[in-house]
């Protein structure tokens, strides 16, 4: 007896567990007959999941929360029983902006506080000379990319709504937009940062692990009502993807994984670019400089796959901070309830709660029990209590 499932995904490296689960036969071994459907926009993934054209989806963690709260769109409660990736984004800036930042920087260039303050000085200079405000590309209003950029620049004193422009761009358009000067920088997941560097038109300024030590990026999302009707399938999905994640994290398997992901109907970019991402060893500037990080992208290792409601609370706090929604204690609760460690534990029988820390480079440690108190520590924001 096999269960046919349609799962939507966006061609990004953090769809790795979904792709490996199918192409290595892990899904079939669990009795799941999965058809992966490649999509072109997060709006499509969300809508097709919402109306039932997809049974499950690769989804931006904040979209799962926004959908459950009915923010910016219809309200469809989502359950996220599995994290597909922790971290994995990077900030890439144009050579011109990179040069301007390096001229202003006072401190280590990998220290986000130093770069954020340098950005503030560049922004102030441009204001004085009446230059156009800098424009930053990100992927979606409810995205980690949006919040990571905002968190970083605000820490340096740049108001993301007043001092610069943030625009949504589909990931495949980011590189072209940076090349033709339409934007000055972007935050996006792999492989797009590496592609910009390889083309010589961008410098990777930060891995987002510099901004937040641990930030949930994409989740495996299902409709909450569907998860209640199909608990066995949800458990099988968790087991399948944990097995895939463990396979991906085994360094010896990386070349095979990279070539699997590189297939044209999957991610469709060069396998070497994908492997760099999985290894956390990235070329960060056109001159060939390499930077390594053990926290660049986590797929399952260090308990990364287990959903953590504190992460959901942090994302909700960002929605509040940037005026996407007013703070409501019951909404915070609903947001946290989207992340389902209970479903994860039920599937894999493991319940040792991973140490939870967002680990932001600025501000006090995050406390989900006092979101407003936490936000009050930040000078820049648009929240109303």
């Amino acid at each position, binding site marked *: 007896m096999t269960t046919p499932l349609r799962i939507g995904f966006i061609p990004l490296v953090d769809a790795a567990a979904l792709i490996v689960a199918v192409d290595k036969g892990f899904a079939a071994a669990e009795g799941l007959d999965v058809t992966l459907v490649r999509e*072109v*926009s997060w709006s*499509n993934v969300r809508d097709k999941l919402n*109306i039932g*054209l997809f049974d499950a989806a690769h989804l931006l963690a904040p979209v799962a929360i926004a959908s459950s709260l009915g923010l910016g*769109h219809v309200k469809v409660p989502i359950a996220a029983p599995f994290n597909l990736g922790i971290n994995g984004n990077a900030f890439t800036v144009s050579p011109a902006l990179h040069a301007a930042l390096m001229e202003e920087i006072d401190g280590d260039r990998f220290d986000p506080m130093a770069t954020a303050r340098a950005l503030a000085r560049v922004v102030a200079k441009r204001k004085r000379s009446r230059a156009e405000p800098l424009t930053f590309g990100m*992927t979606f209003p409810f995205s980690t990319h949006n919040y990571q950029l905002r968190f970083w620049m605000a820490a340096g004193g740049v108001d993301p709504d007043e001092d610069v422009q943030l625009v*949504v761009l589909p990931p495949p358009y980011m590189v072209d*937009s940076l090349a033709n000067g339409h934007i000055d920088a972007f935050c996006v997941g792999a492989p797009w940062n590496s592609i910009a560097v390889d083309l010589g038109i961008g410098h990777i300024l930060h891995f987002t692990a510099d901004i937040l030590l641990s930030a949930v990026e994409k989740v495996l999302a299902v409709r909450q009502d569907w998860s209640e009707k199909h608990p066995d399938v949800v458990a099988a999905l968790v087991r399948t993807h944990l097995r895939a994640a463990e396979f991906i994290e085994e360094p010896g398997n990386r070349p095979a994984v990279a070539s699997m992901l590189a297939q044209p109907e999957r991610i469709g970019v060069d396998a070497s670019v994908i492997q760099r991402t999985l290894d956390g060893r990235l070329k960060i500037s056109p001159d060939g400089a390499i930077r390594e990080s053990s926290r660049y992208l986590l797929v399952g290792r260090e308990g990364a796959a287990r959903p953590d409601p504190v992460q959901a609370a942090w994302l909700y706090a960002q929605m509040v901070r940037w005026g*996407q929604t007013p703070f409501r204690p019951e909404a915070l609760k609903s947001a946290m309830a989207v992340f389902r460690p209970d479903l994860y534990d039920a599937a894999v029988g493991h319940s040792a709660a991973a140490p939870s820390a967002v680990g932001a480079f600025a501000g006090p440690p995050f406390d989900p029990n006092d979101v407003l108190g936490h936000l009050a520590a930040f000078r820049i924001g648009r929240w109303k209590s």
Partner: protein
Amino acid sequence: MSAESSPKIVIVDESPIRAAILEEGLREAGFTGVVHISEMQSLLSRIYAVDPDIIVIDLENPSRDVLEQMFQVSRAVRRPVAMFVDQSDAASIQASVEAGVSAYIVDGLKKERIKPILDLCVSRFNAFAKLQDELDRTKHALEERKVIDRAKGILMKMKGLTEEEAYVLMRSTAMREKKKIGEIAQSILTASELLK
């Protein structure tokens, strides 16, 4: 611009043919204010310049995510825009997503005024898909014809047959082997490549 007169409709579609089909359909139905945007650079500023009541976008267009930005509180937006996916009308949402089209409307536009527009978009999108399908099949048939002609040429040359005889030979072989004549022709081409 009052929404009671003909609403202003923006079509965001990179396919000029499909956009033309849609535009024509909307005009025939009496919606005269139709603007087609095919260039995705600076999409939002283009949309703001037109100031539409309804935006129609194909689901294969990655710029759909760009439109989502309109729902955010922003100084650039002159009026709120909401998406036409009302949970009370699940059937029409399903129909539009399956047809590959999505629509966004300005808040306050009455639902009964939008329904005919969306229905029209769905039927035109489906018509386009059918057209595309027919086109693909025609293309395929043309290619098959080329393959058959080349295979005929090979048979004529190698076996000294007339064109008619070469065709009859392929057709009878196809019937005997329960295959399409195109497949037989293709195997002749492959074999002759190998034997070169």
